[in-house]
């Protein structure tokens, strides 16, 4: 089984995100970047499938700037076999990423695509679903468990009411949730081995994909700072304020 793991380079989850002075977006200059945490979970799951003898080849792929190579190296150090960088300086929207991924899937023909349910920067939660739609493949989103069987794949997804068990046929797209696994840290020998693993670079043009944005961002602002609350003396006062001031009951 061949597994494709799309991963994204985002601002490190430990960094406090700041809005750019001109309100055009968030500041990414001189900010520490890292692999999106959900993508780490996706890579970890793929590596476990390989360690269990269920997958033969793991390919990590990232779409974006040159420095995404570092993110791919992280995935290679965790255990992926090779990397693909679709290199572009353009701001990529989920639909553009899904189209780029589809073009690569057409070339590589993986049996399973594992990706994070969303990235912690845009929080769009769209790429996996769009990719499944473009490919016409079954999808399992927000999964907390995956089993590979002869007939396909049995997955458990986290839904509002609890857990939902599904069987889907391969090839398929799955997006992973937080509780699927705990990603490993790369060992020093594996970090060094990753340097020798191949990363192929392709351009969106070569894949015949138009990545021009469909959405215009007008302004990005900091959320308003929270106002201090008030203390009420009695239940009666609370009910009064909720009814007459907040007008919520």
């Amino acid at each position, binding site marked *: 089984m061949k597994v494709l793991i799309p991963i994204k380079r985002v601002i490190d989850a430990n960094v406090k995100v700041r809005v750019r002075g001109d309100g055009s977006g968030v500041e990414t200059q001189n900010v520490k970047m*890292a692999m999106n945490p959900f993508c780490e979970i996706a890579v970890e799951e793929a590596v476990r499938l390989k360690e269990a003898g269920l997958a033969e080849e793991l390919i990590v792929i990232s779409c974006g700037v040159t420095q995404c190579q*570092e993110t791919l*190296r*992280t995935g290679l*150090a965790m255990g992926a076999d090779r990397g693909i960088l679709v290199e572009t300086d353009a701001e990529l929207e989920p639909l553009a990423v899904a189209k780029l991924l589809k073009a690569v899937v057409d070339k590589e023909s993986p049996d399973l695509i594992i990706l994070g349910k969303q990235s912690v920067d845009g929080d769009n939660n769209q790429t996996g679903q769009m990719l499944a739609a473009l490919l016409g493949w079954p999808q399992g989103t927000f999964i907390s468990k995956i089993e590979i069987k002869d007939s396909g794949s049995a997955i458990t997804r986290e839904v509002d009411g609890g857990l939902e068990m599904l069987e889907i046929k391969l090839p398929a797209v799955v997006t992973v949730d937080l509780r699927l696994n705990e990603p490993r*840290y*790369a*060992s*020093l*020998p594996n*970090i*060094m081995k*990753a*340097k020798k693993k191949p990363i192929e670079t392709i351009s969106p043009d070569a894949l015949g994909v138009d990545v021009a944005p469909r959405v215009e961002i007008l302004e990005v602002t900091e959320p308003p700072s929270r106002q201090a609350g008030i203390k009420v003396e009695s239940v009666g006062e609370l009910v009064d304020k909720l009814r007459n001031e907040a007008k919520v009951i």
Partner: protein
Amino acid sequence: MNLMQAPAAAGESDADLQAIRDSVRALCADFPGEYWREKDRERAYPTEFVQALTEAGFLAVLIPEEYGGSGLGLRAAAAILEEIHKSGGNGAACHAQMYIMGTILRHGSEAQKQKWLPPIARGELRLQAFGVSEPTSGTDTLSLRTTAVRQGDRYIVNGQKVWTSRAEHSDLMLLLARTTPKDQAKKRVEGLSVFLVDMRTALGKGLTIRPIHTMINHSTTEVFFDELEVPAENLIGELDQGFRYILDGMNAERVLIAAECIGDARWFIDKAVAYAGERKVFGRQIGQNQGVQFPIARAYAATEAADLMVQKAAALFDAGHSIGESANMAKLLASEAAWQAADTCLQTHGGYGFAEEYDVERKFRETRLYQIAPISTNMILSYLAEHVLGLPRSY
């Protein structure tokens, strides 16, 4: 004389170092303050932490690939130790496993390297005890009194060492002993030899280890030799040339300790900044007061400056240069920056800094050591005055 040899593959890029730092940070996240507090309280060895570092290959960073390590340079080793300390942990329980083997690597025979380095790289054999200091000779190494006398195919060792860290948690010990009496040595710096002592077989047969309880959780000991037999094949390098062999290893050690100090300093500064930002007194953050923020800013500047010297010393070592001057200055400046940051962090925390749960008091005690070990500040200053500036010898 330049005794350094550049490691085989010291060409790691900044991206490699960043990947190493990220991975060490992720590893250390499994060992939070609570873990270190408990070890400190019980004066227990952090076995689980050392195991995790070993399994991830970080302690074999300096061992060449042909002997099972990663063959990286001192910059990589420094990055690993800095990240450990920056995370709130402490590398002293195992940092020597990284570098003591350097004496075998640089001066041992091919047979000795083949025999000892691969199991050390795998972590099966721990070589993290170094018997040098004695009760009557610390930095005055040439005056040490432990002797090794040849008898047939072995040496008979008698004497005592003190401040031998991790002897109880090490399988092997690198031992410096006098093999030619001081007055018969051809040169002042000759007459000492280096041996590899297999403590697994020596314990109870002429080797006794006695722990010393100290201000910090450091597993240090005194070690006694009474007619201990060491096979002659465990002599490292040439007879009577041991002093030379250990000097170059000591410079590498100083750079690595300096990197730990930088990690400590960064931890203290992060901790002080966070507390100054959240603690409110008289209706506002204490970090709004210049009296609180200026010392933190000053400690930050001192840390960044000291780190430049640490990076310089490590880079010079990796390029094969002699680093006596830069390694000593790196240790001096980094240990003082760490102490400045520690004092500032404690002051910022006020009374809470004394509460164990903030980890400040533990790190405060731990980082104080590095103005004393592995060499005291005054000895560095006299080295710089005499050997770098050409002033008269003061002692």
